């Protein structure tokens, strides 16, 4: 689709170029009628006779008339003689002649024009003045702005093609370096959710190890869905690359650096995971997550700097709901990984109350997470549905984000190829660790239950308030419609009755609600 669109774009460019050249040719042909005249036919008069030069064509058309009038000039005597001959007819032809003749003083002509002979070659010569090339606009050099624009377009297009191919290559490297480990751990590797049967269940397709099963979501986002493993329901691997295909993003990246990221999101079922919210993240990332993520802002009150062994440099911060979890999750393996690959681990986010980011919370309130839906494509339900459900749809997730950075002065591609399988191994170990972890202290469990009850109550209160507002709005609209109907009915009696009813309703609403106490008579 992308390649066909690129080809279409190039074709349109060619079409526009041809159209423009045709338009230019047509414009050139506009002046072609003047090309065939010889210079000898026209003689341009000196500046002293401006009227002659101004009216060369007019003179040309008037020339036969001039000749005629010359004849009439020359033989007025003969004419008058003729007239005189007819004594009875005394027609004064002077006026008539005056109408036909040019007044000699009106036009200043050269002697050539007043001559009677039509055969003499006294046609004035027309000299076509040379107009500077820059004013005609037909010269290529005048179009320097257009050339710059075309160059910019071409450079953007070239950058798009190069960036797209580099991103595709990186995604391919990530997939190939992890393919074996993924296929050893998951039954289903790669699924778009739209085919009737999964690729693993389809016996007819040959399991070709060279086919890339990653899905391209955009030029900078590739995803891979894995499922069919103990401990988790599914794992989504997202390769979020820098937008190399867009020239403006690449230029912006020089000012504000953006990394290529590898994000693993593992979904657990309710029984597979303990109830806690925890996050280990880099400093700048921790602040952002604490602000934007619903669950982290609701359950984790403060951010602490990670002081454990290996995390002493203060790069990382911890957001934890239950104190016991930090020491259980950040074990030796995590510390060793961070020591081996510094600056690679961006964040680890573990939550049984995951509802996404704050801004998108309304659109993500879908029906409770049903894991086995095959028909539902997962489109976001409107806010109305959220209000109608009295349950918060939460996910139990483990999200780990890695930065793909070049190490040891090697290229990014070579580094990615060598370390990606280590990242996946770390993820799988953490998945098993989270699955096997259970609270040792009873207080932790009680605290978790209390927190969740508090948040649930808040949520229900919000839903109830919103429902009340909606009901109020509906009542107002109904009343307004009723009022309009009554006003339009032109029945004064009905109007009066309705107004009385409204007035009573208002009075009742304004009265303070008093509780009635029944006193038993002794």
């Amino acid at each position, binding site marked *: 689709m992308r390649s066909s669109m690129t080809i*279409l774009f190039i074709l349109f460019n060619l079409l526009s170029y041809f159209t423009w050249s045709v338009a230019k040719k047509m414009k050139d042909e506009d002046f072609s009628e003047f090309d065939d005249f010889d210079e000898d036919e026209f003689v341009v008069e000196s500046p002293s006779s401006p009227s002659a030069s101004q009216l060369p064509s007019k003179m040309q058309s008037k020339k036969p008339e001039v000749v005629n009038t010359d004849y009439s000039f020359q033989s007025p005597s003969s004419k008058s003689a003729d007239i005189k001959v007819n004594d009875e007819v005394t027609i004064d032809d002077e006026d008539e002649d005056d109408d036909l003749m040019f007044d000699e003083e009106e036009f200043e002509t050269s002697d050539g024009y007043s001559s009677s002979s039509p055969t003499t070659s006294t046609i004035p010569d027309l000299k076509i003045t040379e107009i500077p090339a820059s004013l005609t606009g037909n010269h290529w050099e005048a179009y320097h702005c257009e050339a710059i624009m075309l160059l910019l377009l071409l450079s953007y297009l070239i950058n798009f093609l190069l960036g797209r191919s580099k991103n595709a290559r990186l995604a391919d490297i990530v997939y190939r370096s992890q393919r074996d480990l993924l296929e050893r*751990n998951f039954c289903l590797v790669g699924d778009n959710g739209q085919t009737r049967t999964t690729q693993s269940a389809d016996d007819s397709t040959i399991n070709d190890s060279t086919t890339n099963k990653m899905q391209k979501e955009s030029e900078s986002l590739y995803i891979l869905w894995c499922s069919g493993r103990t401990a988790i329901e599914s794992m989504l691997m997202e390769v979020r690359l820098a*937008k190399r295909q867009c020239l403006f993003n690449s230029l912006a990246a020089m000012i504000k650096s953006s990394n290529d990221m590898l994000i693993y999101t593992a979904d657990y079922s309710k029984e597979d995971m303990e109830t806690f919210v925890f996050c280990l993240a880099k400093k700048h990332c921790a602040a952002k997550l604490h602000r934007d993520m619903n669950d982290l802002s609701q359950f984790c009150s403060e951010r602490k700097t990670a002081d454990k062994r290996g995390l002493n440099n203060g790069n990382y911060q911890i957001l934890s709901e239950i104190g016991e979890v930090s020491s259980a999750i950040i074990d030796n393996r995590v510390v060793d990984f961070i020591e081996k690959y510094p600056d690679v681990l961006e964040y680890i986010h573990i939550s049984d109350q995951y509802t996404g980011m704050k801004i998108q919370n309304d659109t993500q309130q879908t029906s409770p997470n049903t894991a086995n839906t095959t028909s*539902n494509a997962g489109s976001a339900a409107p806010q109305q549905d959220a209000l109608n459900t009295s349950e918060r749809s939460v996910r139990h997730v483990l999200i780990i984000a890695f930065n793909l950075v070049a190490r040891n002065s090697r290229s990014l591609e070579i580094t990615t190829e060598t370390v990606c399988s280590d990242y996946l191994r770390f993820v799988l170990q953490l998945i098993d660790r989270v699955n096997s972890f259970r609270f040792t202290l009873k207080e932790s469990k009680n605290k978790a239950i209390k927190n969740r009850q508090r948040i649930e109550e808040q949520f229900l209160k919000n839903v109830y308030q919103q429902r009340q507002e909606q009901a109020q709005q509906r009542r107002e609209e109904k009343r307004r419609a009723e009022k309009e109907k009554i006003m339009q009915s032109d029945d004064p009696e009905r109007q009066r009755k309705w107004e009385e009813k409204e007035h009573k309703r208002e009075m009742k609403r304004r009265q303070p609600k008093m509780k009635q106490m029944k006193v038993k008579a002794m």
Partner: protein
Amino acid sequence: MDNRRQARIHRFRPALITQIDDALPDYMNLMGMIFSMCSLMLKIKWCAWIAIFAALVGFANSRTTDDAKQVLSSFMLSISAVVVTYMQNPAPMTIPFMQ
């Protein structure tokens, strides 16, 4: 130890992709349409060129799930704006603040 379990297979749902607010393709489409209209109505050449840029940036940043017809129509509108503007006035473009 083989951790694979056939019974625990779940199908992919697009809603599970981490949503990131990226409205750039939509803004670029809108910008392309506005500049195309400006160039056609007001006969301004540089508007038409910017419309082509906007359409190209919108195309480069668009998602696969986006409707391709919208991107294509944005392109066609901007190219027709350039062609029509130059046919009406084939003179070279002049940028206002650089005169």
